[in-house]
């Protein structure tokens, strides 16, 4: 693990870099780039819903747009930024390592995701357009090429891009797992790790277990599409006037495989956001997180339970009510450890010395989002109520709060917080606070109103709500939701301008501008190649020594490397 020589050329420094910090930033920038597409797609959806009489897009195109919005946002924005981006940047810095365990594999994992992104974007311009079977890609719609225009080449490219995404994720996961477990610096025991690292560890393990079943589903769907197999295609399907030649497959098999992956996936992306919130709140409340060990155990229980509740996405698929009852009980059970995490976030502020800096604002709003969105989850996780709510806007509102708001607030909290570590400058604070309010208010507005739409019976993935009487009660909400969406997009434009301006012209930062006790702040800002100078830091404490002046210094915290009193 000797420190490799510092790279010299532009290509080795910025393109094919082996440095985890550069790779982490490459992931974050790629996520921002894909976010432009994900956001544009969202605006097309919202415009179509608010003003359906204009027919902004064709109905089949609308299905492509909701599919690609979901796919791009979940995998290529949120997962890329949170798990790969922050994971890569923070893990070696927080465990006191010079780099990841396998820097070359790390670089390859990024350059595997790039073709995945390109294939997804390419699918928009091929004949038939992008995939149109939902981000869940259910057969038979996704399996029959002529079923809908997007099910042609677009769906094939989608599947190939997802296969590359899975391979890249696993490659990255190998690095995160081994670096956290094996490359911790001297004195850094597992229970002296920051909670954010625990969340990256649990998220990684979940990923290694959950992604392979999705790969199996992708492979079988590709075979059904291109080699005429019938894994998912039943007998007796009729397309146009002809009976298709498939025999004996079942679309339910795909649903089981997809959701066996799909439910852990949402925890894979939410847990790191919660971890970032713990770090930010500790620093800006000037006190350790409440219930550190309990939070560790809680996230392990959340992860374990998350692998046995996938059926709550399939309550209306015709399952036996007894099976439905099991999945209901297990799903509601997850509320307990997850609520422990949320309550610990709240309690971490008790008797704290709160500093309402921009990262803290995002972290606090994240707690609120967990509570608000999580409440809806109880009704969706219970079969009896989900029979009504399934495929309504209640679901859409719920998951947008959980994997849209919680995750994005975590990403923003992380960016504002670690920006000095990344670039040696501060991210503009005034614009930051404006970004905060113009993000949180529209997001809450949009996604809480969607819950009302769902309660009123509005179904999701519908092109023109005015076609159906059952949307009459709540379709007037579409216009205010869309207006809020425009405000949200405007806020993100402010953020991007602020971000790129601050990278070059922001005020220069001190090494530890937030007075944080974490190990990553003992490295320079920006962190250099190799992270620390000649000697790796030696850890003497956990990363949350705040509020104690007894060491005689003028500061209210002791960094992780400061020796304990004899």
């Amino acid at each position, binding site marked *: 693990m000797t420190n490799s020589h510092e790279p010299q050329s532009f290509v080795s420094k910025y393109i094919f870099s082996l440095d985890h910090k550069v790779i982490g930033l490459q992931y974050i920038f790629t996520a921002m780039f894909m976010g432009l597409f994900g956001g544009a797609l969202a605006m097309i959806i919202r415009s179509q819903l608010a003003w359906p009489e204009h027919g902004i897009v064709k109905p089949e195109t609308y299905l492509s747009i909701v599919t690609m919005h979901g796919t791009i946002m979940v995998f290529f924005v949120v997962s890329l930024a949170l798990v790969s981006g922050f994971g890569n940047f923070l893990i070696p810095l927080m465990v006191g390592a010079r780099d990841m365990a396998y820097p070359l594999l790390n670089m390859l994992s990024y350059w595997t995701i790039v073709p995945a992104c390109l294939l997804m974007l390419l699918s928009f311009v091929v004949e038939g357009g992008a995939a149109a079977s939902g981000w869940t890609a259910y057969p038979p719609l996704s399996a029959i090429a002529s079923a809908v225009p997007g099910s042609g080449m677009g769906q094939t490219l989608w599947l190939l891009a997802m296969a590359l995404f899975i391979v890249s994720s696993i490659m990255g996961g190998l690095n995160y*797992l*081994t670096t956290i477990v094996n490359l911790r610096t001297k004195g850094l025991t597992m229970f002296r790790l920051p909670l954010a690292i625990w969340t990256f560890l649990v998220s990684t393990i979940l990923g290694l277990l959950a992604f392979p079943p999705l790969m199996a589903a992708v492979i*079988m769907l590709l075979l059904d599409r291109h*080699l005429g197999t*019938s*894994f998912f295609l039943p007998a007796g399907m009729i397309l146009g006037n002809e009976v298709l030649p498939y*025999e*004996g*497959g079942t679309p*339910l098999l795909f649903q089981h495989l997809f959701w066996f992956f799909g439910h852990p996936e949402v925890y894979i992306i939410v847990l790191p956001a919660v971890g970032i919130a713990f770090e930010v709140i500790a620093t800006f409340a000037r006190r350790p997180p409440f219930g550190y060990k309990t939070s560790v155990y809680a996230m392990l229980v959340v992860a374990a339970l998350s692998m046995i509740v996938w059926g709550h996405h399939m309550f209306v698929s015709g399952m036996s009510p007894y099976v439905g009852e099991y999945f209901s009980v297990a799903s509601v059970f997850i509320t307990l450890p997850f609520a422990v995490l949320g309550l610990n976030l709240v309690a971490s502020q008790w008797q704290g010395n709160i500093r309402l800096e921009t990262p803290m604002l995002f972290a606090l709003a994240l707690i609120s989002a967990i509570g608000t969105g999580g409440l809806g989850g109880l009704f969706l996780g219970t079969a009896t109520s989900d029979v009504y709510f399934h495929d309504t806007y209640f679901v859409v509102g719920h998951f947008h709060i959980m994997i849209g708001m919680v995750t994005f607030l975590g990403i923003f909290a992380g960016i504002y917080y670690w920006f000095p570590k990344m670039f040696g400058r501060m991210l503009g604070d005034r614009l930051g606070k404006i970004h905060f309010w113009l993000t949180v208010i529209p997001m809450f507005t949009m996604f809480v109103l969607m819950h009302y739409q769902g309660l009123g019976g509005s179904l999701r993935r519908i092109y023109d709500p005015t076609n159906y009487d059952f949307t009459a009660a709540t379709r007037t909400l579409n216009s205010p939701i869309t207006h809020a969406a425009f405000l949200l997009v405007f806020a993100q434009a402010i953020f991007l301008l602020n971000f790129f301006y601050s990278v070059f012209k922001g005020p220069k930062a001190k090494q530890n501008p937030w007075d944080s006790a974490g190990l990553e702040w003992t490295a320079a800002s920006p962190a250099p190649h190799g992270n620390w100078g000649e000697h790796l830091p030696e850890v003497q404490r956990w990363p949350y020594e705040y509020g104690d002046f007894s060491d005689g210094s003028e500061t209210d915290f002791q960094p992780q490397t400061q020796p304990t009193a004899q």
Partner: protein
Amino acid sequence: MQNQTATQNKVNELTLLAVLSTMVMLFAAFTAAYLIRKTSSDWQRISIPTLFWINTGILLASSVTVELARKSANARWLNLTIVLGLAFVVGQLLAWKGLADAGIFVPSHPHCSFLYMLCAVHAFYVLGGIAALFYAIKHTRLRGLCSIFWHCVDAVWLYVIAMLTLL
């Protein structure tokens, strides 16, 4: 330096465990698919051609040679393992050709769809194992872990062929 090697060994061991976990989860998913698909009325098991059993024997022999390679100073047994591994892959392709000549293609029956697919996915892991063995020719301290990976790939093949014949 010794400390670094010990750490690197631990890192590599954990990596191997993680890679094996993903392989297990992948074939577990295929098993679930197999068990569910089997319940349909069109399920008809085809008999496994002899060549698959010969290939199984080749793979078992390669596990023996990789174990011998682990203890040997030079690369002779390792080279033989690589040759046997490549022979296995070629044998699988020939077995596929045999099936195709008999008119049994990928979509012909669900059972043979699984046969073709599981062979292909497994062969992908064999090729990965061969690449690892090539790497281990030079990096002798990795031979132990590469041989464990090889044994697991072998075990997965035994599992696949047992599933196709017995389940």
